[in-house]
């Protein structure tokens, strides 16, 4: 495939599916999965632009590696927070975290 559009469409579709997952799901871990989808869609974007853009440097690929590492760190922290929440509330349903309203 020598056109850039299919790759960008793929990343946009993944991005939208990630946003849908974050907005719609009740389970906190599923929301995290959506966030990972969003970050990976951005990775596809970076790598695609570097492949098709005839750029002199490999900035896109390096950026992608940084984003992968950051996504792992963020997911680790978020899962630790969810475990802490589970120990106190007993469920990972985000609708049940309703102490503060308004």
């Amino acid at each position: 495939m020598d056109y850039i559009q299919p790759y960008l469409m793929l990343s946009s579709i993944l991005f939208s599916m990630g946003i849908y997952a974050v907005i719609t799901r009740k389970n906190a871990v599923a929301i995290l999965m959506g966030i990972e989808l969003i970050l990976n869609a951005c990775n596809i974007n970076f790598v695609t632009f570097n492949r098709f853009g005839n750029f002199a440097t490999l900035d896109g690929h390096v950026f992608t590696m940084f984003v992968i590492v950051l996504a792992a760190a963020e997911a680790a922290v978020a899962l630790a927070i969810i475990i802490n929440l589970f120990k106190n509330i007993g469920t990972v349903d985000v609708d049940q975290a309703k102490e503060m309203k308004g």
Partner: protein
Amino acid sequence: MYNDYIPVVVFTALAIGLLAAPLVIQHLVSPRHNKRNDKLMSYECGEVPEGSAWVKFNVRFYIIALVFIIFDVEVVFLFPWAAVYQSFIAQGQGLLVLFEMLMFVIILTVGFAYVWVKGDLDWVKMQLKYAHGRYSKLGVDKK
């Protein structure tokens, strides 16, 4: 142009075929009369199974996986550095580049030391937070 993809098609066909064939043959050949209640229970070495098959995971699995993933992505950073290191040596800056990466690894080693000393790598965490009163004779580390 697409001739290079023929092995992929053959591979996919073989994979699907070798999976599907035993299932189909089993469905055609197997006896029908002993697929009823007792035969379908899960096998527990002759005992009668009770309770749910979903067991609670020990949270230590998560802690170990977390520490692993952090150091794994640290190694991910080491790979591009290793790939370009030779060209830096050729320019005479090898020591400086090594020192920069050493700083990065030292920061992560401090994190590793923290996880180790605080007892997060033990399978059973042996440091009680409030080890006084009736827990003081347990003989574990008090912090």
